[in-house]
């Protein structure tokens, strides 16, 4: 208890709050720009934090992380361009809603859902971190494989047309085989290109499939209609939609639980959490046919999930000392340079600091919500920029962002190629979200399948004799059957 009081004292100081606010704001901006990731924003701020007291420095980085994830939804909503992989599922419903003249409503829903998801995960982090970390340790290779199979089943749910969606998912899975063989190291489909040795980088693929393809589509649109300028789309009132979101509290709750748990399992491919939540929201919904056409439940599911992912991903990092993905890895580097070694001893020996980190995470979520609350009217002005100017600007940002990731020009070409691919996939109704799912889950599924068989000595029964693995596979089968039934019932598929 004393630790908590000390911790409050560490956080509620002018400079500390200012640092958290600054980090959050920077994260929001970087997250909203396509190509600039949370990991990069944190790496950028890292040297600044060296001279700060631990809670102040870490608080600032936590703010950046929260802000970046939330910022990603702004561009996803307004422009159909997910700022981070976690916001891909947001585009499915937020963009159609924005296009229909309700951009303010879409953003308002996203802000509230993000905030609630973030706060949920902050509560779980502060109260349940050690037992959840314990649960995460029960995931071995068979469980990761089963989880990724479960994730792949979602393709059926995010496709407008089942056959075409599955085809797009297969393209993603095929592309995921490029790069060094995960177990043997022999290069596959790299054609002597060093940049491909570690496989196709997810970010250029994401930006290409979503942002560049959108730019191409708009260019075509512009020449077809000659005047096409979306800047005169009517814009509704932009404000947070508390009541609308709270009405769907069940979606918020289940999505937040999914986000927190997927986040807490290191290496599960965090960005699939928002897809998983989207999928379950659609299955539980009374109006599943509205999903993908601008339905509020879809936005709520994706947004509350991707923000609860942040708190979840802090759990293994703080309690076990293992970062789950890039952004928490950079954050952990920051902690160590601050003289804080993540792991169980952190809780026993440096109680005030760990509670300070929890409180700073709450504060960061509150700042995130406030900034978006006040910023929403500003964000929405983006839509008043003439479309042709906006698209040119977006393309510039994409190139800068993708180049900035690893200063490798090859990734820019890769992005452009994915842009062309995405353009045609959209044009012929295949969709791009399944490709991303395939790309994210392909390597996880493949390497863990082989790892599991390596450890079991080639015994395939490991997938069905371990309870967690078996349940994922069974649920995946049930979900697949349910998706087929739901699709058939609403006659939206099987062209």
């Amino acid at each position, binding site marked *: 208890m004393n630790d908590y009081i000390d911790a409050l004292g560490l956080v509620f100081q002018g400079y500390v709050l200012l640092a958290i606010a600054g980090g959050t704001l920077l994260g929001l901006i970087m997250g909203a720009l396509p190509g600039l990731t949370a990991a*990069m924003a944190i790496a950028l701020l890292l040297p600044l934090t060296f001279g700060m007291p631990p809670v102040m420095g870490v608080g600032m980085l936590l703010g950046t992380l929260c802000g970046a994830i939330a910022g990603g939804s702004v561009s996803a909503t307004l422009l159909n361009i997910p700022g981070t992989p976690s916001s891909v599922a947001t585009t499915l419903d937020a963009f159609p809603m924005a296009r229909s003249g309700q951009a303010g409503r879409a953003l308002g829903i996203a802000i509230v859902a993000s905030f609630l998801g973030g706060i949920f995960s902050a509560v779980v982090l502060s109260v349940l971190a050690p037992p959840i970390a314990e649960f995460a*340790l029960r995931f071995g290779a068979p469980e990761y494989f089963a989880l990724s199979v479960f994730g792949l089943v979602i393709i059926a749910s995010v496709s407008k047309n089942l056959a075409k969606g599955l085809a797009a998912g297969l393209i993603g899975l095929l592309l995921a085989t490029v790069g060094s063989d995960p177990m*043997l190291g022999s290069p596959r489909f790299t054609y002597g290109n060093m940049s491909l040795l570690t496989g196709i980088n997810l970010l250029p693929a994401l930006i290409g499939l979503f942002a560049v393809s959108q730019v191409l589509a708009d260019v075509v649109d512009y020449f077809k209609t000659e005047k096409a300028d979306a800047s005169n789309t009517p814009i509704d009132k932009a404000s947070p939609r508390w009541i609308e979101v709270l009405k769907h509290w069940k979606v918020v709750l289940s999505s937040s639980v999914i986000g927190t748990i997927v986040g807490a399992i290191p290496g599960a491919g965090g960005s699939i959490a928002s897809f998983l939540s989207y999928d379950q929201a659609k299955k539980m919904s009374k109006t599943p046919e509205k999903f993908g056409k601008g339905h509020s439940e879809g936005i709520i599911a994706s947004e509350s999930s991707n923000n609860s992912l942040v708190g979840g991903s802090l759990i293994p990092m703080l309690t*076990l000392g293992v970062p789950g993905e890039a952004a928490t890895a950079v954050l952990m580097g920051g902690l160590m340079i601050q003289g804080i070694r993540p792991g169980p001893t952190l809780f026993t020996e440096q109680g005030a600091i760990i509670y300070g980190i929890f409180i700073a995470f709450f504060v960061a979520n509150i700042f995130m919500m406030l900034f978006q609350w006040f910023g929403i009217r500003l964000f929405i002005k983006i839509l008043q920029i003439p479309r042709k100017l906006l698209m040119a600007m977006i393309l510039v940002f994409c190139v800068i962002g993708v180049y900035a990731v*690893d200063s490798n020009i090859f990734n820019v070409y890769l992005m452009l190629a994915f842009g062309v691919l995405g353009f045609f996939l959209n044009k012929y109704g295949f969709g791009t979200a399944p490709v991303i799912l395939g790309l994210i889950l392909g390597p996880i599924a493949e390497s863990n399948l082989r790892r599991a068989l390596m450890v079991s000595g080639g015994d395939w029964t490991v997938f069905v004799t371990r309870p967690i693995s078996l349940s994922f596979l069974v649920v995946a089968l049930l979900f697949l059957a349910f998706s087929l039934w739901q699709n058939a019932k609403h006659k939206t598929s099987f062209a």
Partner: protein
Amino acid sequence: MKKIMTTLSVATAALTLSTLAVADYPTKNIEFIVPWNAGGGADNVVRALQNPVEKALGTNLVVRNISGGGGAVGFSTAVGAKTDGYVVTIPTNATFTLEGLGNVGFTYTDFEYIARVLVEPYVLAASSQKGWESLEEMLNDLQENDRPLMVGASGVGSSTHIMAVALAEELGVRFEVVPYDSGANAVTAAMGGHIDAVVLNPSEVVSGIDSGRLTAIVTTGDERSGALPDAPTMLEQGYDFSVSQWRGVAAPKGISQEVEDRWVEAIQAAVEDPEFQRAAEMMGSDIMPLYGDELDEFVENTARLMIEEAAKLAQ
């Protein structure tokens, strides 16, 4: 005529500038290429070095993460850079293993090694569920049950993977090396008891050992690791085996002696910096600087071993 004059004066100016550049190195920002993503072990080291080195050199270090190919892209970029001393990189054992695996166009002799800064041994840490307290217990158990040790490493062809293979050879037992996507994922698997052990660097297993989920069996350094003072070395256990992961500063071959001297001074100052020392301790690394001929000898020995083992793996 006017044109020629301009060209001439520009040329003279350029000439003066370049002579000045050597005398007053550095006159502009220095690019520090990290061949991996932000947040990795090497990246943390460079960011911890950044402040003290900037102070000592009186210029900014611009950290560029050029990732891809497990370091291949970044190192190749560094090798191909101008030799004016404004591009440096962070050599590690990966510089050698990449060559051994045959995936890159450079050799380890294409770099001018300026300093070794940090050293961390490799550690064989077993899942505590196995109940082994020492190397002897582990070896006996493996021999009695005639089964291989399932060992996680941080990636196929990584230096930890190669070290696991080399350790198995030295110990005379069978290791089944399971490559993971990252050290963190391998540690998680070992903590959960899904594999028997990991071969990694101390910084990656310290949390697991603190929590009692992992047991450090043996380390591979000349001396005991500062982060794991209780774990014996291979030398102590009677094996003639000593290899460590290391991190330092290197530039493309051909930099001037002045540039090298300035950097050596800067690193000498940096390793005395208390903030850097604290960061190194937290990262589980030992500050063991080495320069000049001693460094060259160290590089020569380590490179030979790592390249040889990596080449075996590639076959």
